[in-house]
């Protein structure tokens, strides 16, 4: 195994790996922040993380590499995706900047920051690397364990507490207690009458005989879609699929096809 011989100087193989995967990681990061849809961001981020995991391995942090894959790309990213689903898969927030000058400031600060960081690293004398040879001698995991349970034991305990607290907190935040009794149908109708905006029950979604998916608004007599028919969550995500247009298009297509058939039949007569 190469661990023992993991030298201060990286081998050419590692160099190749670094240059290739590094590029990919950067691309992934960029796409994370540049892609419109949250899902795509999440996926590209996951990619970057996996690459980072590889880098950890390359740096002799085998345990971390595994954890990175398992915890991050496994658990956390899934959590992300889950929330994205919850909030809206297709919810694409426009990258159009609303805050005045925000983007320029961000660019300036970001660039300045990055340049400074790199400059800092550049003129910090980090030339000499003494690899993890002896540190990992007894195996990386054992080494970490030794440290965690001796030197860092208290920090470790505290992080445990932190995690529990976080879990409880998350529950408290997301779980909504139903405090009052659900309103009966009668009460609801009475309420509707009282505030008199929408007396009748809400119209059902779907265009009869064509789409009856919940995200398709029903058409009003004049053919325009009615927002009311779609449930508010979808509305909030802005995921209403307006089908009035495409249904017309389909109609046109149908007529054309029929004409073609007719035309072909005429040729057949000749």
């Amino acid at each position: 195994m190469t661990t023992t011989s993991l030298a201060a100087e990286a081998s050419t193989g590692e160099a190749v790996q670094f240059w290739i995967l590094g590029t990919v990681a950067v691309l992934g990061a960029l796409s994370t922040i540049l892609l419109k849809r949250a899902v795509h961001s999440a996926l590209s981020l996951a990619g970057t993380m996996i690459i980072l995991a590889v880098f950890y391995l390359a740096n002799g942090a085998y345990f971390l590499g595994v954890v990175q894959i398992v915890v991050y790309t496994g658990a956390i990213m899934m959590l992300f995706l889950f929330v994205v689903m919850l909030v809206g898969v297709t919810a694409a927030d426009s990258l159009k900047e609303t805050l005045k000058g925000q983007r320029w400031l961000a660019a300036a600060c970001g660039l300045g920051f990055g340049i400074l960081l790199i400059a800092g690293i550049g003129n910090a004398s980090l030339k000499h690397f003494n690899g993890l040879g002896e540190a990992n001698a007894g195996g990386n995991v054992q080494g970490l364990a030794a440290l965690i349970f001796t030197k860092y034991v208290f920090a470790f305990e505290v992080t445990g507490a932190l995690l529990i607290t976080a879990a409880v907190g998350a529950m408290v935040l997301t779980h909504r207690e139903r405090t009052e009794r659900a309103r009966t149908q009668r009460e609801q109708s009475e309420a509707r009458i009282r505030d008199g905006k929408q007396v009748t029950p809400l119209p059902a979604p779907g265009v009869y005989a064509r789409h009856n998916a919940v995200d398709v608004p029903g058409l009003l007599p004049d053919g325009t879609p009615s927002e009311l028919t779609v449930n508010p969550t979808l509305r909030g995500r802005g995921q209403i699929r307006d089908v009035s247009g495409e249904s017309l298009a389909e109609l046109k297509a149908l007529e054309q096809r029929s004409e073609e058939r007719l035309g072909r039949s005429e040729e057949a007569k000749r």
Partner: protein
Amino acid sequence: MNPVNYLYLAALLFTIGAAGVLIRRNAIVVFMCIELMLNACNLAFVAFSRMHGNLDGQIIAFFTMVVAAAEVVVGLAIIVSIFRTRHTASVDDASLMKL
């Protein structure tokens, strides 16, 4: 190749993440960027632990992960509840700090 390149990479990723935090409005994406920054830090830690030849850097990276996990959990929970009440996940709409 000099392993210091890992540090450069970390810096780059970190910067990108920061920029993302600044320019994205969707809270979830902002969170992802934060994760990206954390990961960049971890990479740096790992590289340092290689440099110094001891494992403390890795330990710290480990703790970072744990904390990041906790943070994500809570953060996402917050996002969800905000979304519930305001039907949006845009950080700009939640400009409650303004008088």
